[in-house]
């Protein structure tokens, strides 16, 4: 019924084979190219990946160093601040004990000599012997008796609140010289603090 030409059938097969062969070659070649490309891409990515990997590592290391610095820095500062506060506490205690001792010190003996030196110092600095001297209630008698050695000096009827020593004013009221023990301590406080701190082993 369906009789084909023998040549036609053979030719078709050959053609099909040829097409199949070509396709196979194409596919194989494509696969090879794709493989090569992939291999090339992989090869190309390695240095990029390595660079990326190194960057991530180095960024991480930097970040870690930064955080370490932050933690160490604030811990150091906190510890130092606590030490400072403890030291200041101790210095204050020493100070207040010393001030108590000064306030309750005996006013006899050398104390009148100290007052005399203080008045001499004040008259010299003010440049006048016409002065009014003020002191606290406790030292009033000692100062009064010392003033007899200073003509031109008079005692103020007022008293001041201080540990000891005197405040000297020129009679015209223009100049005042504070030579109380409080003022002298205040002026020397930084040096005294240093001295006390060195006893605790700080600032040596």
């Amino acid at each position: 019924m369906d009789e084909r030409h023998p040549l036609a059938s053979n030719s078709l097969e050959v053609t099909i084979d040829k097409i199949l062969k070509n396709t196979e070659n194409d596919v194989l070649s494509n696969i090879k190219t794709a493989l090569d490309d992939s291999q090339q891409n992989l090869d190309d990515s390695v240095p990029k990946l390595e660079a990326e990997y190194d960057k991530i590592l180095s960024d991480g290391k930097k970040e870690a160093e930064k955080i370490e610095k932050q933690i160490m820095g604030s811990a150091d500062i906190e510890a130092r601040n606590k030490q400072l506060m403890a030291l200041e506490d101790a210095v204050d205690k020493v100070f207040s004990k010393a001030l108590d001792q000064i306030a309750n010190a005996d006013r006899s003996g050398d104390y009148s000599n100290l007052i005399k030196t203080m008045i001499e110092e004040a008259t010299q600095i003010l440049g006048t012997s016409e002065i009014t001297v003020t002191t606290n209630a406790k030292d009033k008698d000692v100062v009064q008796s010392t003033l007899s050695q200073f003509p031109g000096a008079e005692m103020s009827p007022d008293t001041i609140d201080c540990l000891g020593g005197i405040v000297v004013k020129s009679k015209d009221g223009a100049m005042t010289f504070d030579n109380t023990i409080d003022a002298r301590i205040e002026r020397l406080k930084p040096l005294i603090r240093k001295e006390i701190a060195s006893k605790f082993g700080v600032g040596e």
Partner: protein
Amino acid sequence: MTAEGGVQYSKIAEIKGPLVIVDDVENAAFDELVEVETKEGERRLGKVLEVGNGKAIVQVFEGTTGLSIAATNAKFVGKVMEMPVSREVLGRVFDGLGRPKDGLPDPIADRFIDINGEPMNPEQREYPKDFIQTGVSVIDGMITLVRGQKLPIFSGSGMSHNLLAAQIARQASVIGTQDDFAVVFAAIGVQYNEAEYFRRSLEESGALKRSVLFLNTADDPAIERIITPRVALTVAEYLAFELGMHVLVILTDMTNYAEALREISAAREEVPGRKGYPGYLYTDLSTIYERAGKLNGKKGSVTQVPILSMPSDDITHPIPDLTGYITEGQIVLGRDLFRQGVYPPVNILMSLSRLMKDGIGEGSTRADHGEISNQVYDAYSRAQEVRALAGIVGKAGLTEIDLKYMDVGDVFENEFLSQATDENRTIEETLGILWKIVSKLPKNEITKIKDKYVEQYYKEE
């Protein structure tokens, strides 16, 4: 320091602006410290500006508001203003007059030093030549700072100079040596939030422990600003020359300092100079800037980075103008770059570090540093010209090489100049980016770098 105090005078002749004129004064000395006592017993510090004819003119640092002629006393302390110094000042925060502002007690002083400092013997000065790494690429790479240098930052109102100042303070370090490094930061007339930012920034980065902060805020009396840079420099000199540390001093904003000086000058009725600033502005500024340097036989150094905001961005204004005469170069922040959102907006074409050449190269940074920097400077300058040309003829009218230069300009601004405020770049990283920029150009355009460096670092794209 002696136990003897000074005399207190109660005859105030006049109170004029920040000045108090005291009558019948004997034996007062120039620059002597004065304690001015108000009716309520409040004490303010001042110093003697002039003495003569039985009068003393006293400049009150904390202002004269609330003082009256009748009820004010002036006590002449008998010494100049001194700053207590010791290693303990590191990690501390002080106000503009050097008083603790961090709630902690006064530091235990090792010494008390006159805040006016001692002039450096010019013969004893050592030429600055050692690199300081700030971690900011544009500074390290192209406007390198060296130890002992004074390199100001010229900025403008509202620009990011304070961010940059804080970043430098946090990141700065000396490389290749085990010597101690410290930062002294003086904020002069800054806003409260800026002062807080500086403090917090150093605290949170852990850099506070090697720093000393002096904060004079905008609401503090203007006259205090005269003292702030001086106390800061006194501490810096102590740390540098007594303790052998390398100290970076950042002073911001020197414009506020100059304005305080103008205020005093006006109150003293002195003949005004340019823009009302006193004629001695140059001399006065030099007494601050010249306190930077290195000394023969001493281990430490004082490096200064004063920051000043130029009124109306005017670089010919007396403050930047006179500063530029004294300092060794300048870092100029550009308004255009700032508007583009670039940080730090450093205009390298207007910036210069005069001592850079001695602080870079083999043994300091890297052998190719100078040449790569020059090449990028040249390329960026060309990029600016090309951009201007493109504005006229359009991009289509540019040659291929012009386009490459435009690309160089973009990469320079986006990758080299732009940096996060917490990004600390090493000098190697900085030089790496500079080479990346240069690698955008064909080799025949590279004319300022030796072939051996081109072979080593150039990576054509």
